[in-house]
């Protein structure tokens, strides 16, 4: 049995601990600390604000890529090139990306940031998509890139709970990649390490 988990459950009470919108209050506390001649304390408050901004920035870039992936799967599923059962996979994977996007947007809001929105128009290399395998190869490339993107984000998060949540998404993207490779007749897990 697969138990559905919330990778961001560690963030449930995040609002109280780290909150960007609350920095008005913390900044004035910093100002008070400065006036009281305690610049170290003031700097500490400033860096907390920087940490939140950094994390929101990373999450928003990830959200932008997830929104594009949702649109890409819509193009793939709507192309008429995918046959069942591969078509079902595409729809299922798109559903995962929607879940990723929803949780990223929610977390960004929780941290006091503003989530990026989906663009009205995305460009895709549709000229090169003529067969089912073309579509699968395109999707596999996006999923493989997504693994790298999350891998590259994990060490940058200032909040460790965010790093762990990103790693949880990374695991899902890696499964997509492997299944798409399998569907293409390629070695589904070609390496022991991802980079």
């Amino acid at each position, binding site marked *: 049995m697969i138990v559905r988990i919330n990778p961001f459950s560690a963030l449930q009470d995040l609002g109280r601990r780290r909150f960007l919108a609350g920095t008005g209050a913390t900044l004035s506390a910093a100002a008070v600390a400065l006036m009281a001649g305690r610049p170290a304390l003031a700097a500490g408050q400033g860096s907390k604000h920087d940490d939140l901004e*950094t994390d929101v*920035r*990373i999450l*928003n*870039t*990830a959200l*932008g*890529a997830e929104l*594009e992936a949702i649109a890409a799967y819509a193009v793939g599923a709507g192309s008429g090139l995918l046959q069942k059962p591969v078509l079902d996979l595409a729809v299922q994977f798109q559903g995962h990306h929607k879940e990723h996007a929803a949780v990223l947007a929610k977390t960004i809001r929780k941290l006091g940031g503003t989530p990026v929105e989906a663009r009205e128009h*995305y*460009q895709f*290399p549709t000229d090169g998509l003529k067969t089912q395998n073309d579509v699968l190869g395109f999707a596999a*490339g*996006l999923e*493989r*890139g*997504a693994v*790298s*993107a999350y*891998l*590259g*984000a*994990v*060490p*940058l998060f200032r909040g460790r709970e965010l790093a762990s949540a990103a790693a949880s998404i990374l695991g899902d993207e890696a499964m997509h990649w492997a299944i798409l490779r399998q569907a293409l007749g390629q070695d589904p897990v070609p390496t022991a390490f991802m*980079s």
Partner: protein
Amino acid sequence: MKHRAATAVLVLAALVSLPAGAIVPGDPVRGEAIYARCQACHALGYDRTGPKHCGLFGRRAGGVPGFRYSPAMAQADVVWDANTLDRFLANPTGMIPGTAMGYAGIADRQERADLIAWLRQASASPIECPP
């Protein structure tokens, strides 16, 4: 035997005398495979979450018209070439703090050199990057 030892010493000396930060020759074939890591966000020919890479060499950082860069990238006083790309790709947020490219970077010098060698060719390719 003696000859071989002498050669080894020469090669070693050459390696040691490479200044820190010098660019090792890159292999574009390996570089193309490494570019797969960038393909959640970038394409050569069109803007995605990240800006397109066509025309990258010689362009100012933040220089793709119409792409919405972070203030940090838009204001960076950098022109992209093999050296600046090597620094950026080693540690994007270290070189340009506040960049929206939330990506830790490529620690391996040879991998960076390979990627840059490929980017140099591909970003000027008349097929991928028609004028």
